[in-house]
């Protein structure tokens, strides 16, 4: 009987202790102080909306068509505040072929904000952390298998200026370590100089334009004739990344 009493006390105590020990680590749950941040990307060639397989002219007077355009957006912040999502969910692949991928919706703390910041690419830690899922799944065709690492941004197309078979050109831009690092932190101030307010339960929508022309013409001129292909980390990839880092601009912010 004594033993029984002891059990009656110990069992619930042990049970409780165990349940505390294994309680899942605190995850940020969208709370009542959270609104929704919607970032909508549109791609263009200068003032013209980008359409796949349509001919445009780059600033070096080379006609070109885009067949594929993809880039990673990660670590989105407004001022110094981050989205209310798990670290695993902090990566987005904008893919011109998949219209839904061009709109990113994340729960975000309510507040008054002046600027948006994000990383164009995948941070170095995730490049060395083994098998990933979601936007980082190697199925997305953005992972180099022979030289581990993510392709941060990819532009493929055709141009008569290219000397490659089928007049292809392909820019697969990656590299995350040391002097090959092409990660770009993009920071865009909201227009009008005044803050925009995200209220709890409401949305803040940011329309961002990415001008593909910048891949060819930024701090450097990259002509398809001289560089029809860039598929490894290195100095050419860095130059192209310096160029495309300038492609984003805010079209509008709506609160």
């Amino acid at each position, binding site marked *: 009987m004594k033993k*029984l009493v002891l*059990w*009656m006390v110990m*069992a*619930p105590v*042990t*049970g*409780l202790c*165990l*349940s505390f020990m*294994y*309680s*899942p680590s605190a995850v940020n749950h969208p709370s009542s102080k959270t609104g929704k941040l919607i970032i909508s990307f549109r791609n263009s060639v200068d003032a013209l909306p980008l359409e796949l397989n349509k001919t445009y002219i780059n600033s070096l007077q080379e006609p070109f068509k885009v067949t594929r355009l993809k880039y990673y957006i990660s670590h989105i912040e407004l001022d110094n505040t981050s989205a209310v999502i798990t670290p695993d969910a902090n990566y987005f692949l904008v893919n011109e072929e998949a219209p839904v991928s061009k709109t990113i919706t994340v729960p975000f703390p309510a507040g008054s904000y002046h600027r948006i910041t994000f990383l164009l690419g995948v941070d170095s830690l995730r*490049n*060395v*952390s*083994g*098998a*990933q*899922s979601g936007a980082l*799944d*190697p*199925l997305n065709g953005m*992972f180099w*298998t*022979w*030289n*581990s*690492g993510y392709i941060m941004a990819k532009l493929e197309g055709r141009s008569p200026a290219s000397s490659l078979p089928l007049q292809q050109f392909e820019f697969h831009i990656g590299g995350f370590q040391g002097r*090959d690092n092409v990660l770009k932190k993009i920071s865009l101030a909201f227009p009008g100089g005044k803050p925009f307010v995200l209220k709890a339960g409401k949305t803040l929508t940011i329309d961002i334009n990415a001008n593909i022309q910048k891949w060819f013409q930024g701090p450097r001129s990259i002509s398809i004739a001289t560089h029809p292909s860039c598929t*490894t*980390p*290195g100095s050419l990839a860095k130059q192209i990344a310096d160029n495309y880092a300038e492609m984003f601009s805010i079209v509008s912010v709506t609160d």
Partner: protein
Amino acid sequence: MNVKRSTLSLYFIILITTSFGLMADSCSKKVKNNIATTPLQPDIPEGFPKPVYDFENNPLTEEGFALGRKLFYDGRLSIDGNFPCASCHQQFAAFSSYDHSFSHGFNNAFTTRNAPGLFNEAWQSAFHLDGGINNLEVQPLAPITAPNEMAESIENIIRKLNKDDVYRQMFRSAFGDDAITSQRMLKALAQFTVSLVSADSKYDRFKKGLLAFTPYEERGYALFKQKCATCHTEPLFTDGSFRNIGLPAVPGIDDLGRMKITGDPADSLKFKVPSLRNVNITVPYMHDGRFASLEACLQHYNNGVVKSATVDPLVADGIHLSNTEVVDMVAFLRTLTDTTLTKNPRFADPEHKAIFSPDRH
């Protein structure tokens, strides 16, 4: 008393069921969707350094290991069904390609490098002879998608596996539900490859004082510590660095090694220092399998080193061994063979099918 007893037992039943309910709910790591996994402890031999592999990110389980093992031996990971991982990584050869300088892949194509043995991978910080792969988990993407190896796509493998009830059941057992994803497949494969530990050779038993070396082996070991151990460092028999030991590039293949990854001319002709564990059974030798015997390797160190800007100072002037020293050294290198690894039934083909026809191993 009777009443008392039944109330008591009722109390107990409620208590036990609720506390179990609570536990099952909260131990989500070990019990997912009411599917229990059996945790496995990583095998970390005495005297080995801390593993590089992040076991916390991929906790070993009996179920994950079993799935990885099945995948490793499954031809469906290759386009025509003929080239599972195990076709190039054979257990009896410490998971290297025995007696082939280049391994056979799809469509009679050859790999451009010699398949190394697979063991003690948890202690490697870079994979492949050029170190191009930075994590064991993503390594399989390279052979699976290479046109001269398995020539398959991950999408297609997932499609094939999804058609197989056994696989769906095994993914469920290992990961809690039967979704077959690249991440789960890669983590399971890593659970298998990371478990291939080699630490029970004659050398290891000698180090533990369990047996004695012959005089040849003893002299060979002394020589080894003096002339080779800077690069082939105990207990892993590699320091993980990339070095050029003066093997000239073969025209037509022109494998520049580490430079292929870094683009840095200072890395030209540097290759990862291979572990010498099991070296006697991983013939042929060097990144391209150019030497067919241990004696030929020693001959290279003796007088074959071709000097170039990146050749390692430790070997630039050769490492000279007399004929008797060569005999001693080879005797020592043979003590590194670990039959506990090559004969472990846990690492063998789970379906015991004979995948190696005599003309294609």
